[in-house]
């Protein structure tokens, strides 16, 4: 295969399995995000791809060639670290030229490449600056330019924007995405920020407990989470315990609900979890009550201006609905609301 192929990779630190039997294929030129909470193994997986850790089991292959045992300094995958790891004793230009010097490029070639890269990351004429004289965003760009200097086959970024303020972070995300599209370089970004992952990646690998829980396009993961972990981690989800009645009917407390479809493995009378996004729940008045409607008590209303968050108590379960201000009836805490759960938005996941 042309691209990066990870097969059955496992890494344990003592008794703790940081990465547990991960397999993933990344086609050449694709932008993938490893998304997950801290401690889910995403950084360990990236370090194994870079060659900074050796897998306990499994193989990593680049363009069909096994590179599992190849050390980092032979792989030469450009990597941007969370701490950036710029060399404080070197200037901006010398930082960028570090890999070029090792490749044996002469002074003229190095200078040309430094200028090209500094233009690429929009920091022209910064070559002679000391790293300590740069702002956070400028350092970020120098780290990106340094990692790209050697024209790496794979470009790795480990939470590179976590130290930046919100505005600069958004700017850098857009810049990086444009840069990646221009260079068509296979890129892996590790992040715990789902907004970052959703807005930048071609595909997202959601990681939890050392495993890839789901791998797919941002929208398909959001619209169709594979399990409770993904439903909970990507965006907000209401998760309700239900009993499966048949392939498109479940029972939630005293309510019978029609759902999109139940997991193939679940037979009637098994327990499952119903997942529905807050924005998919419709609040209706009692006289409009139709199928798939449950009555709940409003516990708390938060008007955010652009949307209204309604917290509800439904059969002893907390539920959240987000409605547009124009659809909001103006009810308050303690009122009874009728929630319509559209059939095609109700997904049933394993319990």
């Amino acid at each position, binding site marked *: 295969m042309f691209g990066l192929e990870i097969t059955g990779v496992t890494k344990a630190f003592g008794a703790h399995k940081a990465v547990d039997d991960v397999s993933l294929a990344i086609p050449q030129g694709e932008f993938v995000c490893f998304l997950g909470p801290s401690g889910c193994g995403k950084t360990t997986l990236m370090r194994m791809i870079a060659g900074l850790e050796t897998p306990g089991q499994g193989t990593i292959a680049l363009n069909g060639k096994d590179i599992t045992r190849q050390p980092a300094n032979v792989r030469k995958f450009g990597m941007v670290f969370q701490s950036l790891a710029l060399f404080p*004793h070197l*200037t901006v230009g010398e930082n960028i030229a570090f890999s070029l010097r090792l490749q044996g490029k002469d002074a003229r070639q190095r200078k040309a490449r430094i200028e090209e890269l500094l233009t690429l990351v929009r920091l022209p004429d910064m070559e002679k600056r000391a790293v300590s004289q740069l702002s956070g965003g400028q350092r970020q760009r120098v780290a990106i330019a340094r990692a790209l200097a050697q024209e790496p086959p794979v470009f790795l970024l480990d939470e590179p924007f976590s130290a930046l303020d919100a505005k600069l972070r958004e700017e850098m995300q857009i810049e990086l995405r444009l840069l990646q599209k221009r260079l068509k370089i296979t890129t892996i970004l590790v992040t715990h920020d789902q907004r970052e992952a959703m807005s930048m990646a071609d595909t997202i690998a959601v990681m939890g407990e050392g495993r890839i829980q789901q791998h797919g396009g941002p929208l398909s993961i959001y619209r169709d989470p594979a399990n409770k972990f993904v439903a909970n981690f990507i965006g907000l989800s209401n998760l309700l315990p239900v009993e499966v009645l048949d392939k498109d009917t479940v029972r939630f407390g005293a309510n019978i609900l029609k759902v999109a479809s139940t997991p193939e493995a679940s037979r009637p009378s098994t327990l499952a979890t119903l997942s529905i996004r807050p924005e998919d729940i419709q609040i209706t008045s009692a006289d409009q009550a139709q199928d798939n409607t449950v009555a709940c008590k409003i516990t708390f209303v938060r008007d955010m201006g652009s949307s209204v968050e309604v917290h509800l108590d439904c059969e002893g379960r907390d539920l959240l609905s987000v409605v547009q201000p124009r659809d909001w009836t103006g009810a308050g805490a303690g009122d009874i609301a009728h929630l319509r759960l559209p059939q095609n938005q109700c997904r049933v996941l394993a319990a």
Partner: protein
Amino acid sequence: MTDVAADTRPAEADPARTERMVLTGLLALPALFLTVLSLVPLLLLLQLSVAHHDEGGLWRPSLELTQYAKLLNPQFLKVAAFSISLAIGTAIVSVAIAFPAAYFISRMKRRAQVAWLVFLLSTLSLSEVLIVFSFQVLLSGAGAMVKTLMALGLMSSAHSLYPSFGAVQACLIYVVLPYIILFLYPAVSQLDDDIPAAASTMGASPVWTFLTVTTPIVRGPLLSAGLLVVIWTVGTYLTPLVLGRPQNWTIGVQISNAAMTTGDLPLAAAQAVALVCAMVGLLGLTRWLSGQKDAQA
């Protein structure tokens, strides 16, 4: 409103002034001690170095430079040059050993780190006297070192390994090593592990990374550690006297001989002043050199 503001202003300035006064008061005593304990002996030494030497170990106050003129004799200059080169040699070797040692200790597991640091701290309780005489036993013809070398076939006949230059150098390095490891440990343990990792993703081998990335980053502490060793060992007295031949004797032994054997206190004082001046010159030179490098960077 303006009246109120005008009233509060002096009241706001007061706490700062009180704090400054308290600080000055607290620092006055140590400052006085430092001045008295370092300046007074130095001035006495200076006074003695320009005094007139009388026979029989006596001297009377004077203002003559005859003692300094005596320093220009080749014999003394040779000893001075030897002392300084011995100190610089000790500094280079001990820092070259201590730096990687401190680096590896700082990368060990917490428990192993603590064990190493406690061990190093406990070796500091050995006095130089104890170490020098232990080296004497260790390096003697019937000592463990000779027996080991014989057993390994590296030595054909049993003979004592001291007095010799090697014995002096080895003992001095042994004495300063734990200090230098402990001195470098804080700087080395603060090094970001991502930096060598970044170098390796750019194609640098571990050795190249250590030489061109890790070492330059801690250049300042390494230089300070080296200077510290030079200052400590340039005046060493006991180690060369016990483990060295007369040609390995240092300026310290020379000063002691002038003062105790020849009874020429002004000459001994002049030699000591010359040593202090050489050290101040070395400090200035190092500062200037590191300043030049910083300006380049």
